[in-house]
C-alpha cells in the first residue's frame, strides 16, 4: 500500500457527468418506428417483442416518454392517411369491403403497438394526462378516416342506400353492415349517433311517411295493420342483426309515429273495416293486432276505448229501447248477456284483459241498462224463468255460471230496490206454487245477493224460506195430533206466512165452502193453541186446490185449480146452473178475479168444465154458467190455470212503482237523520250528495224527493233551518 502511495498514483474523477449517447433516443425511436411500419405492412414476424418492449421501456425510463408518444401519434397518423387514400380509391360496392378490411388491419396493428408501448401506457400516460394508446388509435381513425371529407358522406350514403334496398326487398350483406356499424360504435357512441343514427332515423321517417300514405289509400284497416306490424318487426330484426341495441327504441318510435300515430283516427273510423266492424264481426286477430300496435303510441288505447264505448252505448241503447225485444223479458236479458259475453271475449282474447277496457265495458253497460226502467223487472223475470224450468237437467256448475252472469247485470242496476221488490214477488209465487226447481239454487242466488248488497237486502227473502220450512213442520204436527178427528174429509195444506216478509196485499177473504171451513177452523185452533198471541188471516187469493170431479158419462178427472176456482166449482155440487151474480154473491170473490177465474173455467178450449151462455170470449155481468156435462180430456189430471199475464200489466207496473217510491221515503229519511246526527249542521247540497252516496248501492235517489223528505223532517221537527243562513240545516236532538 505504502509503495503505491509513493508512486503518487492519482485516480481522477470524470470531468463530466455520465451521459447517455445523445443519439440514443433517436436511435431507439428509429427501431420502434420501423417496427410500427412493419406491423402495418403485415411484416411483423421478424420483430422481437422483448427487444421492442425493452426499448420502449428504456425510452420512458430515460424521460423520453414525450418523444415516444408524439412519435407514435405522427407515425400512426401517417399510416392512417395512406389507408384513407386507398379506401377513397375503392370503387362502388368495394368501398365498404375495403373499409372493413382496413379497419380489421388497424385494430390488429393497434393491439400490437399497444403491447410494445405497454409500459408507457401504464406510467407515462396517466401521470401526463395523455390519451391511452388504444383510445388514441381509435380517435386517430375517427379523425383521419371516418371524418375525412371524401369518406364521411360516401359512407353514410352507402349505409342508408343499403338499408333502403333491404326495405324494398333486396338481400344485402348483413355481416358487412354489422362490421361497419360495430366500428362506428367502437369509435364512441357519439360517432355512431352523429354519423349514422340521426340521418338514419330521418331517412326512415320520410320513407315510412310516404309508405303509410300509399298504404292507407289502398288497404283496408286490417290489411294496413298487418303491414305496419310486419314493418315494425322488420325494423326490430334489423336492429338485432346489425345495429346498436339502443337504436331499437328510437327506430320503432319513428315507425310507430309515422305508421300508426299519424293515421290513428282514420284507421279506427275506416268504413267497413274499422274498429266498429271488427267488433261486430268478432275479428279477434285484427283487434289484437290493433291493440298491440296502438298500445305503443300515446293516446292509442284511449282512442280504441272511446270508439268501443260509444259503439257499445249506441247498440246497447237500441237493444234496450227496441219494442220488439221488450215483449219477451227472458229474451231481452239473454240478449244483454250475449252482448256482455261477446265483449268479454273480445277483451280477453284481443285486448289482453286490459283493466281500462273492462272498466269501459262496465260503465257502458251500466249506462244503457238503466236507460230502460223495466230492466230490474226483466232481470228478475229472467231469474224466475231459469229457476222455474230453465235449469232442469243442468249441472250445478252451469247453474252457478248463469246466476253469476245475472249478478253481473244486477251490479249495473241503479235501482236495486226495484229489483228486490220484483224478486220478492216472483220468489213468493215460485215458493207458494211449489214451482221452484231446486232449493239449493234458490239459496245460492240469495247468498249472491247477500254478498253483493248485505244482510238487510235479503233478510226478508230468507224469511220467506224459513216460513216455508216451518209450515211443513206445522202441517206435520197438525196431522199427527188431529188425525183421528179429520177422517176422510178434504186435506188441507197451510203455509203460514209472516206478514211483512211476503209481498201480500191484504184482500178480503172469499167465502170458502163449508167442507173446507171446518178443517180451516180446526187448523186455526191448532195453530193458535201452539202459538199464542198471533193472528191468522186467509190469503184465499193465493192458494190452489186439487178436486175430483165426475162428468156426464161417468169419466172421472182430477182438476188442479186455484182456491177461487175451487170455490166456484164447489157451488156446482148442488146445482147445474148459476148466473154471474149468483156466483158473485155466494163466493164474494173480487170482481176482477172472479172474471178471470170464470174465463179460465169456461172459455179455454180443452179445459172448459163450465159452459157459458151466451158463448163469447169475455165475461159479462149477466152471463149464465152451466156445468159442462160433455167435458172431455184425454188426461186424468187437468190443470186449469188462471188467465194472467206473466209480465206485469201497465196498471200493476204503476202500482209497483208507487210502492217502491213509498218504500224509499223512510230509507231517505233515515239516511238524512243518520248524516245530520253526526254532522249537526250542513248545507243542502252536501246533504244531497251524502244521501246519494249512502243510498246508491240500492237506488239513485232523486234530489227533488230528498228535498221533500227534508221538508217533511223539518215539519216533524227533526231538523230546522238555520236562523241566519237559510241554506243551512240544523239537527234537533
Amino acid at each position, binding site marked *: 500500500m505504502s509503495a503505491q502511495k509513493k508512486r503518487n498514483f492519482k485516480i481522477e474523477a470524470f470531468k463530466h457527468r455520465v451521459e447517455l449517447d445523445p443519439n440514443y433516443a433517436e436511435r431507439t425511436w428509429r427501431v420502434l418506428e420501423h417496427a410500427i411500419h412493419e406491423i402495418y405492412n403485415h411484416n*411483423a*414476424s421478424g*420483430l422481437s*417483442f*422483448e427487444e421492442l*418492449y*425493452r426499448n420502449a*421501456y428504456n425510452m420512458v425510463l430515460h424521460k423520453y416518454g414525450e418523444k415516444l408518444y408524439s412519435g407514435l401519434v405522427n407515425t400512426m397518423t401517417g399510416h392512417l392517411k395512406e389507408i384513407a387514400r386507398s379506401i377513397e380509391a375503392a370503387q362502388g360496392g368495394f368501398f365498404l369491403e375495403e373499409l372493413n378490411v382496413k379497419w380489421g388491419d388497424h385494430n*390488429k396493428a393497434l*393491439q*400490437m403497438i399497444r*403491447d410494445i408501448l*405497454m*409500459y408507457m401506457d*401504464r*406510467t407515462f400516460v*396517466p*401521470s401526463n394526462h395523455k390519451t391511452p394508446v388504444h383510445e388514441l388509435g381509435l380517435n386517430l381513425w375517427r379523425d383521419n378516416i371516418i371524418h375525412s371529407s371524401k369518406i364521411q358522406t360516401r359512407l353514410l350514403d352507402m349505409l342508408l342506400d343499403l338499408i333502403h334496398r333491404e326495405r324494398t326487398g333486396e338481400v344485402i350483406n348483413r355481416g358487412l353492415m354489422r362490421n361497419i356499424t360495430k366500428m362506428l360504435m367502437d369509435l364512441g357512441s357519439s360517432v355512431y349517433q352523429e354519423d349514422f343514427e340521426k340521418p338514419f332515423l330521418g331517412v326512415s321517417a320520410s320513407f315510412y311517411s310516404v309508405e303509410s300514405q300509399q298504404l292507407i289509400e289502398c288497404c283496408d284497416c286490417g290489411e294496413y295493420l298487418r303491414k305496419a306490424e310486419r314493418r315494425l318487426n322488420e325494423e326490430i330484426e334489423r336492429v338485432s342483426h346489425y345495429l346498436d341495441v339502443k337504436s331499437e327504441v328510437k327506430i320503432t318510435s319513428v315507425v310507430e309515429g309515422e305508421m300508426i300515430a299519424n293515421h290513428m283516427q282514420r284507421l279506427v273510423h275506416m268504413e267497413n273495416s274499422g274498429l266498429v266492424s271488427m267488433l261486430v264481426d268478432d275479428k279477434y286477430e285484427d283487434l289484437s293486432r290493433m291493440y298491440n300496435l296502438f298500445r305503443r303510441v300515446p293516446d292509442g288505447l284511449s282512442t280504441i276505448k272511446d270508439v268501443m264505448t260509444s259503439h257499445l252505448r249506441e247498440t246497447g241503447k237500441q237493444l234496450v229501447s227496441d219494442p220488439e225485444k221488450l215483449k219477451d223479458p227472458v229474451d231481452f236479458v239473454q240478449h244483454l248477456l250475449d252482448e256482455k259475453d261477446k265483449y268479454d271475449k273480445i277483451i280477453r282474447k284481443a285486448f289482453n284483459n286490459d283493466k281500462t277496457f273492462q272498466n269501459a265495458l262496465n260503465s257502458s253497460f251500466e249506462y244503457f241498462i238503466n236507460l230502460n226502467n223495466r230492466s230490474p223487472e226483466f232481470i228478475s223475470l229472467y231469474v224466475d224463468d231459469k229457476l222455474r224450468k230453465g235449469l232442469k237437467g243442468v249441472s250445478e256448475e252451469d247453474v252457478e255460471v248463469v246466476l253469476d252472469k245475472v249478478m253481473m247485470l244486477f251490479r249495473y242496476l241503479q235501482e236495486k230496490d226495484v229489483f228486490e221488490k220484483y224478486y220478492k214477488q216472483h220468489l213468493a209465487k215460485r215458493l207458494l206454487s211449489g214451482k221452484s226447481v231446486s232449493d239449493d239454487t234458490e239459496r245460492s242466488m240469495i247468498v249472491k245477493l247477500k254478498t253483493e248488497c248485505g244482510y238487510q237486502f235479503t233478510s226478508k227473502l230468507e224469511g220467506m224460506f224459513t216460513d216455508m220450512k216451518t209450515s211443513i213442520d206445522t202441517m206435520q204436527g197438525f196431522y199427527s195430533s188431529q188425525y183421528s178427528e179429520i177422517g176422510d174429509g178434504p186435506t188441507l195444506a197451510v203455509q203460514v206466512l209472516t206478514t211483512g216478509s211476503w209481498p201480500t196485499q191484504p184482500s178480503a177473504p172469499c167465502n170458502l165452502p163449508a167442507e173446507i171451513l171446518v178443517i180451516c177452523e180446526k187448523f186455526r185452533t191448532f195453530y193458535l193453541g201452539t202459538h199464542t198471541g198471533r193472528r191468522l188471516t186467509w190469503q184465499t187469493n193465493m192458494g190452489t186446490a186439487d178436486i175430483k170431479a165426475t162428468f156426464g158419462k161417468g169419466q172421472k178427472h182430477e182438476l188442479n185449480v186455484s182456491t177461487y176456482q175451487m170455490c166456484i166449482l164447489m157451488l156446482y155440487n148442488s146445482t147445474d146452473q148459476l148466473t154471474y151474480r149468483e156466483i158473485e154473491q155466494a163466493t164474494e170473490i173480487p170482481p176482477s178475479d172472479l172474471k178471470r177465474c170464470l174465463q179460465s173455467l169456461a172459455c179455454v178450449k180443452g179445459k172448459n168444465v163450465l159452459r157459458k151462455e151466451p158463448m163469447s170470449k169475455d165475461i159479462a155481468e149477466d152471463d149464465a154458467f152451466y156445468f159442462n156435462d160433455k167435458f172431455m180430456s184425454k188426461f186424468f189430471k187437468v190443470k186449469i190455470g188462471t188467465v194472467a199475464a206473466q209480465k206485469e200489466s201497465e196498471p200493476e207496473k204503476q202500482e209497483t212503482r208507487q210502492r217502491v217510491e213509498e218504500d224509499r221515503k223512510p230509507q231517505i229519511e233515515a239516511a238524512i237523520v243518520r248524516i245530520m246526527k253526526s254532522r249537526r249542521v250542513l248545507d243542502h247540497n252536501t246533504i244531497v250528495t251524502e244521501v246519494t252516496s249512502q243510498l246508491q248501492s240500492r237506488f239513485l235517489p232523486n234530489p227533488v224527493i230528498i228535498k221533500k223528505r227534508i221538508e217533511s223532517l223539518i215539519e216533524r221537527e227533526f231538523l230546522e233551518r238555520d236562523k241566519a243562513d237559510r241554506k243551512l240545516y240544523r239537527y234537533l236532538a
Partner: protein
Amino acid sequence: MASRRGRIRFNVGGKIFETTATTLANAGRHSMLGALLDDSWNPRQPVEGEAADAEYFIDRNPACFAVLLDLLRTGELHVPPNMPEKLLNREALFYGLLDQVRAARWGPFDGNRLQLVDSVSGRAPGDGTAIRAGPDGGCCVAHGSMVHVYDWMLEEHRPISLDYQQVNDVGYIDAESIVISARERLGKGDGGMGVFSSSTGELRHRFRVSHDNQVKSFTAGALSLGSSDYKIFASCKGRCNEYGIGVWDQITGQQVDFFYEPPGCSLGDADKLQWLDGDKCLMVATLFPRTDNCFIGLLDFRDKSVNWSWSDAGTSVSLSLDEKRVLHAIAIEDSRSICVVNQYDDLGFIDLRSNAGGVRWSSRSKLTNRKAPNEESCYPKLATHNGQLFSSMNDGISVFCGPEWVLTSTLRRSYGGSICDFSIGGDRLFALHSEENVFDVWETPPSLTI
C-alpha cells in the same frame, strides 16, 4: 413458443426458467408476459421438436423474476430478506405485475389482526393536521399548508403546496385525486377547496360557492365524501355570515346545494361530517374546543331539515372541572347510534332513534392506565370499519368489537409521542404521531392457504 405439453422456457438475464402456459395465464393479457406469448407476436407455429429448444430471452434481473414467477404460480408473495422492496416493485412494474404484487402483499382489513409493517418519517417537524388513507393503500399527511402524498408502496410523491394557506381537511375522491379544504386568509380572497392530482400534485379543479348567483370566497372546514351518490360535503364559512354546509358533485365539480345554518345549529364550524348512506342524511358534529356547546345533528338535504339533533348546551349548567366534554363523534349506522369520546377517553353513545336523549357513558378509565399529567396529549379520535370501533388515546389505538363494544386489541408503538390523527382505508390503518413527524402503517397479513 408453447411446446406440446404447454411448457415455456425463459432465459432471464442468463438464468433459465421453465414454467407452464397455465401459470403465465395468471399474469393476464395486459401484462408484458401476456403480450409476449400472444399469438400476434408468435405468428407461425414452430415445427415440433424445435419447440423444446426455443426460449424467450428477457434482459432483466433473474432473482426478482423468480419471486414474481413464484407469485404467479402460488398467488403468494415471498420476498427474500436481501431483496430491497424497491427493486422488486420496479421489476413488477416492468412486467406489468404491480397490481398482483399489491394484492398479495396484505389481506382484508381486520382490526384484531393488524401488524405494524412500517413507520415512515417525514421531513416536517411534528404537529400534523390530519392523515387520510387512500382507497388503494396510499395516504396523505397534512402539515400546515403542505400535504405530503404517499402511494401504496409508501413512495413519497411531489407534495401539494398551498402557498401558505392553512389546510383544514383532506380526502380522497379516488387514488388519483385528493380534495383539500383550506382556510381563507384575510384580504386575499383565497382559501376554499380544490382537487389535486396525487401523482403530480397539481391543481385540477377549484370548488366554488355562490350565494345568490355571486361567487364568494370562503373557508372550508371538515369534508365528507359521499360514496354512493358522488357528492362532496364541506362545512363552509363565508365573509357575510354565509355559514353552512356546501355540496358539490364529484364528477362535474359544480356546486349542487347549500344548507344554510339554521339558528341554534353551528354548521359552518363543524369538526366532523359523515354521510350516512342508509338514512340519506349527513351527520354534522361541532365540538369542543371549537365551540363551548357541542352540537351534533343529522341533516336531510331533500327537505332542508334537521332530522335529529343533540346538544350539551342545556346540560352543562354546573361548569365543574370534571365535566365531560365531547371531543369527537362518529355515527355507527348499524347500531343506530352516535359514538362520542371525552377528555378522559371515555366512550359514550347517543341513541339516534330517540330525539333529546342523553349520552350513555361507559367509563374506560379502569381499563387503561391514565396518562401522566404532565405529558402532552392529543384529543382522542374515533373511527369505525366493518363493525369495529377504533379510538385513539395517547400513543395507542384501541379496537372495540361486538354489540357491547368490548376492548379486543390495542395498537401501540413505542416512540413518536401521542397519536394526533389516524385513518382507515385501502385495507390499511395509518396513525400519525404528534411529537415526531412519523406515521405508522398497520395492515392485516394475507391469510395463507394451508
